[in-house]
């Protein structure tokens, strides 16, 4: 295993760790806030819509917003990992696998567009 490979593995691992820890903290905080709220609203939500509403300063329950953010960060963590892998493949001048990473990302974006539509 060469130094470049080791570097790539470190970056990918770090990306995954940061994503999981951030998400776990947000989910825990969200659950505490929701637990303390006496009459919680319907928990059947689309996290994307909740976060969009929160960012556009519309009123959203803070607990649900924290839970939605935690779930979205968790769901985007593997995608950020693909971006990290793409970056390392480009640095390693590994064109075939940089292309593979681009295909995976493109398909994911396509899926996201289908969901949003």
């Amino acid at each position: 295993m060469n130094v470049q490979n080791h570097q790539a593995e470190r970056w990918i691992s770090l990306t995954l760790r940061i994503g999981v820890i951030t998400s776990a903290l947000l989910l825990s905080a969200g659950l505490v806030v929701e637990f303390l709220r006496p009459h919680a609203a319907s928990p059947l939500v689309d996290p994307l819509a909740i976060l969009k509403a929160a960012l556009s300063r519309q009123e959203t329950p803070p607990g649900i917003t924290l839970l939605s953010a935690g779930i979205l960060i968790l769901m985007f963590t593997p995608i950020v990992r693909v971006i990290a892998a793409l970056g390392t493949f480009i640095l390693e001048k590994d064109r075939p696998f940089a292309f593979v990473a681009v295909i995976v990302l493109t398909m994911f974006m396509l899926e996201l567009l289908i969901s949003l539509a």
Partner: protein
Amino acid sequence: MSAGPLICTMLGGAIAGTLGALLGLGGGVFLIPFLVLVLDIPMHQAIATSIVAVIATSSAGAAMNVERGTVNIRLGMLLEIVTVLGALAGGITASVLQGVVLTKIFAVLLLVISGAMVVNRRFAAPHQHDTRKEGLWLSGEFYDEAAKEMVSYRVHNLPATMAVSLVAGNISGLLGLGGGIFKVPAMHLLSGIPMKAAAATSNFMIGVTAAAGAFIYLSEGHLNVHVAAPAALGVLAGSMLGVRLSRVLRAESVKIVFVVVLALAAVQLLMR
């Protein structure tokens, strides 16, 4: 939000995560029957919850495995092309199927998984000393801590493993499972990848595959955050406990019990 369901969901997630880690699975096969049969949660919501939990355990496990060098990153990325495609098709199919149909499909799959767990025990590891020249471009190596030696391998018969991965991705999108139960044997038996590298690479891929199917469930409004959040946290904690337990418990000896539990859950789901 009351304490009872919160603790119950977290506990169920922790048990599913522990069992999953003990058997090298994501935990979805245990979590979904628990949510449907014990907590009476609709099938679509249970699947959406399982997808979130599967992403959590996969990401946490992959972070450790990548650092250890057991993941074949290039092979994983290549197989992700077909698993994402399968997950996309599975997610779209699930959005048009009724919950009762999904429950029956899931129950049948549980029976298949139970059978596969029994059959997998009989397979021997192929390609122990591989001298063939093919498969060099995806070759890998890692340090086996148990054997205290470097293990080198090449990847053979890639199209067959890709075909199985496509089906695994489809199952992931359709039923919220990681699909490792199909991918790991395929990588090991068809492509000659050592078991540890196959399991680590499968786990590495699961996050992206599950995320691909997840957004369809989310946009359909099937995600109950009061269930998904404690379940994900529970599964995450349980999988960490399971990894520690796996060092002292022999997975083979407890496998039979789990096969029976899965088969019973399948029968109960079929009868619903």
